[in-house]
């Protein structure tokens, strides 16, 4: 019955297809409703935002390395934000804030999920497009608008928001508190509201597509880990972003209407402000209820991408497929009950701190399951070190070295000296920043032929890009652990001016130079990316000999993804190097009846008829193995 239905569906789309031949430039490249084009839009916008955020970080690193040198060039470039050749202290805070905001939300949330969920969900589950292509298009344009509004804050008189990416009140609630609390903060809030709308529209689409539009045979347990990861990520977003909306609504009323949700007993310029009774801690609760799931929204797609790439390039089934899915589900569930670990030093009841400490440390268990499974997959694999594979392995490395420090921070007592120091900065830049960026880059190298009609990126440049970035990332973030242990606080304009910390100046200079080298290495990526779009080597339809459905779709992009019927799926996506088969991969579309020599009894777990046929075949062909 469902065959008929699926078939009818495709017929109707072929019909649609004819109409789409009249695509104009606008409907094809600008207001496109095709998930593959929207994926490219997200990717290119994401890369642009990443470059901007990276340049911002180089600017503030220069200040940290040379706190008392003047650079007339800065004044030329930044004007009033860098008078007399030195960054304005308040502008330094704005730089840190916008760097964090763009990286966490615009690059690693929208850029990452937006690109790969859009590209891979329909192609890997076998759907012609998203559940609602129109809403999908809106999702991109809201994201684009949010990016423009966020960047426009560099052009207002007082500069961009400056209260940190977590925008704690009172700094964010009192426009007069500092330069970064004025117009820039307002624009930040407007931009984030648009961003949340975009994220919700995207996420709702992804979930609905995965649950409703899988092709025949694609039951949940035959989905690649990428799709599982995107799916759970989208659920996290749907449940947590609205909470930030609630927090931001209250903040807006405090800012502009004089309510006191977050404000109390504030004296400014010697005058007592009329606010009373509010609680700034309330904002932290609302923020981190989103904020912690958000860090998993960032890392889970990268994890899914790496799982897939590691299995393909180790030519081995992913180790512990079910455990990989259950650990993702475990992480997703737990991520909603750990937010208090960001608030250990807010005067929280020590008992509550203990509860959050236990839930936090439990998250280490599913995280470790994933790590061991990646290592076990690589173990004695027939590894192909493509650039994508290297970046995926890089993710594993960063996730381990950054995750270990999470265990320290998760102890409510240890966190007292470590909170708000460079130790935290080191922790999250390794475990989230570097790991997720590496996952995203791995995905770009791996799926480039799917994004850009069958072209490949250059491998040599890819290797260069990987090694320089990998080494520099460690050189930048590893020393920060020691600074943090020594008590160096984060978000300080010139902390080495304090006698207690001035011996860290040389380390700061070293870090800055490592960061500059890392930034330069990205030029090789940008060149590789943009030139390969036009001149890249032509790939075959399935360049990595992978099993998943996207490689069965034609190389050139067509509406509806497949000509004629959508392929049917018969097996899980990880049949690599299956003993008894003549090739080292068996695509999901190959029925078990065509691979008799490699079938195993457990391939027929819920298929008694198939098992019978298999047993008969085994009796005839492999008498020695039949008991």
């Amino acid at each position: 019955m469902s065959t008929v239905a699926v078939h009818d569906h495709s017929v109707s789309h072929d019909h649609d297809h004819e109409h789409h031949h009249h695509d104009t430039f606008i409907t094809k490249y600008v207001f496109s409703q095709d998930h593959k084009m929207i994926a490219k839009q997200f990717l290119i916008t994401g890369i642009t935002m990443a470059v901007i955020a990276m340049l911002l970080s180089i600017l503030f690193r220069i200040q940290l390395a040379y706190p008392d040198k003047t650079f007339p060039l800065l004044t030329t470039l930044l004007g009033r934000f860098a008078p007399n050749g030195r960054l304005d202290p308040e502008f330094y805070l704005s730089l840190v804030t916008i760097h964090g905001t763009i990286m966490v939300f615009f690059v690693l949330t929208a850029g990452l999920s937006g690109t790969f969920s859009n590209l891979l969900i329909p192609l890997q589950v076998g759907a012609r497009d998203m559940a609602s292509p129109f809403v999908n298009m809106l999702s991109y344009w809201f994201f684009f608008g949010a990016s423009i509004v966020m960047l426009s804050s560099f052009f207002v008189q007082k500069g961009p928001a400056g209260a940190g990416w977590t925008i704690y009140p009172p700094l964010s609630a009192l426009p007069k508190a500092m330069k970064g609390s004025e117009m820039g903060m307002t624009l930040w809030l407007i931009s984030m509201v648009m961003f949340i709308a975009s994220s919700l529209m995207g996420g709702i689409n992804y979930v609905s597509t995965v649950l409703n539009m899988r092709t025949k045979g694609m039951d949940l347990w035959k989905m690649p880990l990428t799709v599982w990861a995107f799916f759970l990520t989208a659920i996290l977003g749907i449940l947590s972003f609205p909470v930030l909306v609630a927090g931001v609504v209250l903040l807006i009323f405090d800012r502009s209407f004089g309510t006191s949700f977050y404000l109390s007993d504030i004296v400014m310029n010697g005058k007592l402000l009329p606010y009373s009774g509010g609680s700034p801690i309330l904002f932290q609760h609302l923020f981190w209820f989103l904020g912690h799931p958000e860090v998993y929204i960032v890392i889970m797609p990268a994890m899914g991408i790496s799982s897939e790439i590691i299995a393909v390039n180790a030519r081995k089934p992913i180790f512990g497929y079910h455990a990989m899915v259950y650990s993702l589900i475990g992480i997703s569930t737990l991520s909603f009950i750990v937010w208090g670990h960001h608030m250990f030093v807010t005067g929280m009841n020590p008992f509550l701190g203990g509860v959050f400490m236990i839930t936090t440390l439990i998250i280490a268990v599913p995280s470790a399951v994933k790590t061991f499974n990646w290592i076990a997959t690589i173990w004695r694999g027939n590894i192909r070190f493509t650039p994508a594979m290297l970046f995926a392995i890089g993710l594993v490395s960063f996730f381990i070295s950054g995750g270990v420090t999470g265990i320290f921070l998760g102890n409510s007592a240890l966190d007292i000296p470590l909170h708000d120091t460079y130790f935290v900065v080191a922790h999250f830049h390794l475990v989230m920043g570097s790991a997720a960026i590496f996952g995203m880059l791995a995905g770009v190298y791996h799926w480039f032929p799917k994004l850009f009609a069958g072209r490949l990126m250059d491998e040599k440049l890819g290797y260069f890009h990987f090694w320089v970035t990998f080494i520099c990332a460690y050189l930048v973030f590893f020393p920060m652990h020691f600074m943090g242990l020594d008590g160096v606080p984060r978000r300080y304009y010139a902390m080495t001016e304090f006698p207690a910390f001035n011996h860290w100046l040389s380390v700061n200079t070293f870090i800055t130079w490592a960061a500059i080298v890392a930034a330069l290495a990205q030029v090789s990526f940008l060149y590789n990316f943009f030139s390969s779009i036009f001149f890249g080597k032509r790939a075959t339809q399935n360049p990595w000999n992978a099993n998943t459905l996207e490689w069965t779709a034609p190389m050139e992009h067509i509406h509806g993804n497949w000509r004629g019927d959508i392929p049917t799926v018969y097996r899980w996506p990880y049949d690599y190097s299956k003993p008894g088969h003549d090739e080292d991969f068996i695509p999901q579309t190959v029925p078990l009846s065509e691979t008799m020599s490699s079938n195993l009894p457990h391939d027929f777990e819920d298929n008694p008829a198939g098992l019978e046929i298999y047993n008969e075949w085994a009796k005839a062909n492999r008498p020695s193995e039949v008991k």
Partner: protein
Amino acid sequence: MMMAQIQQKEDRLSLQPKKFVMWLFVFASFMIFAALTSGFMVYAGGRGHALNVILPNIFMYSTGVLIISSVTLFLATRATKRQEVSKQRLFITLTMILGVIFFGLQIDGWRILTEMNIFFVEPNASRSFIYIFTGVHLLHIIAGLLLLTSALYTTYRSKPQSIIQFRLEIASIFWHFLDIIWIYLYVFLLLNQN
């Protein structure tokens, strides 16, 4: 005959995911209200800022109006399934009118609150929360009214029955959700009156 069947199946296929989109949206909205009420509890619990407001009766009346509007919407859905077009239009219109009355009553509730010297901008933000709850809910009501308008509008266009039914279903999922959320908020406020 065969053609019609295929047609219907296909409609079901392409509309089902869109209906699911609505359900997910409802979950997202629900989280906003869950967050706001949790915020209230953190605020009121943490600092001993009780509400100390006896809610004016008008909120009871508005609750009644909203519940009746859910009933009329249910009747509209039944009429649609039986293809009784005029009844369907009548009940959708009634639902919308009741929705507008609800809107008015809530706004009047705000007026009465200010007469009781309970303001949006005041040091005890527990009280500001009353305005936030009702205000955010009213924003949703506007969205709900728009969905109902689109459902009503479709009945005047020559659209296939499945589309008409689909639009109304989308609107009803949302409207019944708004009804339940308001009851939740109202009971929540009643329980926290002092």
